[in-house]
């Protein structure tokens, strides 16, 4: 998985022969030149220019091209492969329209989220992790979607209260806040969730599903609700754990945040540290309990999307979220 992150705001990305060439827009300075065969994804944070020839190459070869704001919000993307799996999408829409199947799937995503959240808290010895056990039973027994979402919301509050206690001094937060995140830890969580949502969206696209039609998250114009569903089971094990280790290992400190806009933002210079940790985590290998083989976390996301397809097409009796022990 060759990912290129472009943080330089004035970068000019072009295709030169078989290479990706990144130069500073004004002037001749070449920042990076590497064979395009080694590039699987380009993530542009800011206002870099991409030439039409490179764009065409990315589209033909299935190289993902993603645009994010310098603060990490997702704008748009050219996905790796166009979804050819029409039967999967028809099955997905049918399941969305069938209340019983929709509730069943929503429940699986919530259970995946709760189980993995519990593991993260327990492993790190967070006080109060036991309270999440009750939520698991409540989610199993929830009779309708609203009750299920209520259970999930309550559990999320409890989870973040416990999670906050794992953070070093100066980074603790009272509750999860976003738009804008009111403290540095929340700001990092938001960034990590944006990156995770992007990964889930492309995994779903590759598997042939429509990331915008979900089960737990209601559909809304412009909201990738299925990507949000899929990321639930990965939030704690991927995003939260990266934030936790970056802060606890002092790889990021309060100096890496800028407060000039009234809320803390990760400084531009600190972005590589954050992204490197994120990439390391995604490259980490883990044993997939259902498939019985070792996969990187990035491959695991794709495997889950494919397992969802199998379930929707009737090849698996139920969707099995990815859980760690």
């Amino acid at each position, binding site marked *: 998985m*060759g990912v*290129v992150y472009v*943080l330089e705001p004035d*970068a000019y990305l072009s295709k030169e*022969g078989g*290479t990706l060439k990144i130069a500073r827009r004004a002037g001749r300075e070449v920042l*990076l030149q590497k*064979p395009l065969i080694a590039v699987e994804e380009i993530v542009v944070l800011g206002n870099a220019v991409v030439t039409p020839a490179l764009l065409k190459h990315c589209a033909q070869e299935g190289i993902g091209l993603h645009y994010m704001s310098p603060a990490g919000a997702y704008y748009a993307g050219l996905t790796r492969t166009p979804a050819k799996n029409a039967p999967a999408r028809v099955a997905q829409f049918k399941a969305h329209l069938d209340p019983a199947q929709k509730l069943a799937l929503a429940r699986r995503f919530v259970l995946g989220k709760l189980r993995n959240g519990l593991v993260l808290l327990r492993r790190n010895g967070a006080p109060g992790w036991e309270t999440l056990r009750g939520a698991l039973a409540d989610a199993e027994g929830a009779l309708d979607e609203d009750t299920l979402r209520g259970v999930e919301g309550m559990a999320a509050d409890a989870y973040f209260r416990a999670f906050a206690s794992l953070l070093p001094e100066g980074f603790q937060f009272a509750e999860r806040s976003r738009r804008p995140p009111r403290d540095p830890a929340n700001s990092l969580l938001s960034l990590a969730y944006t990156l995770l949502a992007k990964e889930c969206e492309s995994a779903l696209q590759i598997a042939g599903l429509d990331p915008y039609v979900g089960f737990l998250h209601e559909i809304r114009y412009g909201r990738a609700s299925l990507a949000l569903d899929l990321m639930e089971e990965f939030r704690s094990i991927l995003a939260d754990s990266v934030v936790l280790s970056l802060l606890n290992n002092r790889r990021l400190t309060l100096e890496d945040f800028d407060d000039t806009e009234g809320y803390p933002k990760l400084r531009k210079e600190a972005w590589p540290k954050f992204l490197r940790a994120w990439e390391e985590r995604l490259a980490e290998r883990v044993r997939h309990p259902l498939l019985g083989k070792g996969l990187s976390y990035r491959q695991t996301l794709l495997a889950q999307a494919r397992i969802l397809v199998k379930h929707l097409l009737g090849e698996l009796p139920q969707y099995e979220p990815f859980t760690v022990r």
Partner: protein
Amino acid sequence: MRELYLVIAYDTPDDRRRAQLAKLLKGFGERRQYSVFEARLTREQWAHLKGRLEVLVDKKEDILAVYFLPPEAVGRTWRIGHQGLKRLEEPDFV
């Protein structure tokens, strides 16, 4: 995914072909000297490159050799002046 580590060296009297070879190889590896490249490729990528080289190289006039290094040899390579090839999956930050 098994990777192949290769060193490609070539010589040709034809200026045009020399430029074409350099351009092609830049898309697969890194240039070490004017006509020496290092590349780290999957088997599929190598098959692709091999096909392109077969079309491009003139068997009568040019010489081109691809040396495949075993993984142990790559680990023992001694270098001055450059870092060696990055693994394909390593991310880049610009």
